[in-house]
């Protein structure tokens, strides 16, 4: 196999582009795909402050690395979810990555800062762990972004993730979800903009990117994920992809180009003004946000509000949840 660009020996084939790449040109290809996504969907404007949701896995570390390479101001946020050994290890990967590059990593630990963890929240709500986990993540990314004056929150969702979510939504005709499934969610109502700059890159390419750039990431999977339907959708799509390369890309980008708009038209106008959560101040349609209710049901506690206003423009770490008074 020869590199499409330089004809040197290739290290990876990207079949949906019908192309092989050497290390140098594969990295360039990844940079180009991220730039293309950022430009096509107006994800990040020059000079904006980006908060990257970092899990210690391949996608989020590759994303952080790529944004940094491309000259964006990107700081990381790692959430300690309290999922046993998996969480302990993932934090080490995130910290080592940041330290080696001199990047700022913010941290929130559910147990230390809020007195609960994902397994406890799952038990208390009697729902799958991913649902309590997802709720906690969304809330805390928003909150840290708000406190740290970040313009945008970036997550490492890749093409496989988005295609699998789309597949699940289509199988059940979840029209409301379909109306909202976009690689960028504009800011509004007190929420920061949310972007997914890796949507043009597959999961396999992100793992390859980490290997060729020497990013050490957590290969072990979250134990809570085993057997969930999301994984089943990925498997189904990958067996189609194996036979017809490019299917995942066409499925997802065809949806964005030709179908998403139709679902958005049917979307109920949810312009109903949001108020502030009485406990944490987050925007919410009721008087208390879903996160604060989750913390309470899980036997946790909210950090006390003391008007603490974390440093912003300097890039000093936002220390959330450590607001005990002296």
């Amino acid at each position, binding site marked *: 196999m020869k590199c499409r660009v330089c004809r040197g020996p290739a*290290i990876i084939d990207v079949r949906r582009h019908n192309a092989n790449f050497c290390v140098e040109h594969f990295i360039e290809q990844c940079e180009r795909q991220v730039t293309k996504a950022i430009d096509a969907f107006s994800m990040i404007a020059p000079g904006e402050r980006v908060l990257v949701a970092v899990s210690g896995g391949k996608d989020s570390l590759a994303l952080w690395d790529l944004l940094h390479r491309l000259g964006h101001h990107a700081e990381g946020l790692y959430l300690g979810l309290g999922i046993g050994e998996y969480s302990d290890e993932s934090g080490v990967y995130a910290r080592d990555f940041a330290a080696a590059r001199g990047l700022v990593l913010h941290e929130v630990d559910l147990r230390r800062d809020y007195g609960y963890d994902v397994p406890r929240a799952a038990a208390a709500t009697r729902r799958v762990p991913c649902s309590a986990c997802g709720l906690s993540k969304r809330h805390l990314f928003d909150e840290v972004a708000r406190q740290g004056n970040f313009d945008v929150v970036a997550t490492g969702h890749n093409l496989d993730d988005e295609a699998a979510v789309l597949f699940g939504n289509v199988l059940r005709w979840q029209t409301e979800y379909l109306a909202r499934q976009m690689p960028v969610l504009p800011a509004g109502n007190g929420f920061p903009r949310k972007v997914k700059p890796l949507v043009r890159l597959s999961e396999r390419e992100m793992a390859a990117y980490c290997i060729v750039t020497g990013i050490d990431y957590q290969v072990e999977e979250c134990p809570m994920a085993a057997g969930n339907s999301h994984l089943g959708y990925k498997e189904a799509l990958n067996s189609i992809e*194996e036979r017809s390369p490019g299917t995942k890309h066409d499925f997802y980008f065809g949806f964005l180009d030709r179908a998403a708009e139709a679902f958005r038209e049917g979307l109920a106008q949810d312009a109903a003004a949001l108020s502030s959560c009485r406990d944490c101040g987050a925007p919410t349609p009721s008087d208390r946000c879903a996160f604060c209710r989750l913390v309470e049901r899980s036997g946790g506690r909210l950090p006390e509000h003391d008007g603490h206003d974390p440093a912003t423009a300097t890039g000093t770490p936002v220390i959330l949840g450590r607001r005990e008074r002296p």
Partner: protein
Amino acid sequence: MNVRLRNPSRTVQIQGGRSVAKLLNELGLNRETVLVIRNGTLVPGDGFLEDCDEVELRPVISGGAA
């Protein structure tokens, strides 16, 4: 060759050299879902693995739904 698999982490012995594509085929692995690593570098689908190689087959599919 020694082949390291992940999730859970384990090593299997395979007799004789063969191409990456053939190895994945024999193990019933979808090429979209794994990378082949030898001495810290990626081996492409048409690469040949020698009997004396230490190889890692690394899955690339993450499962989080959030």
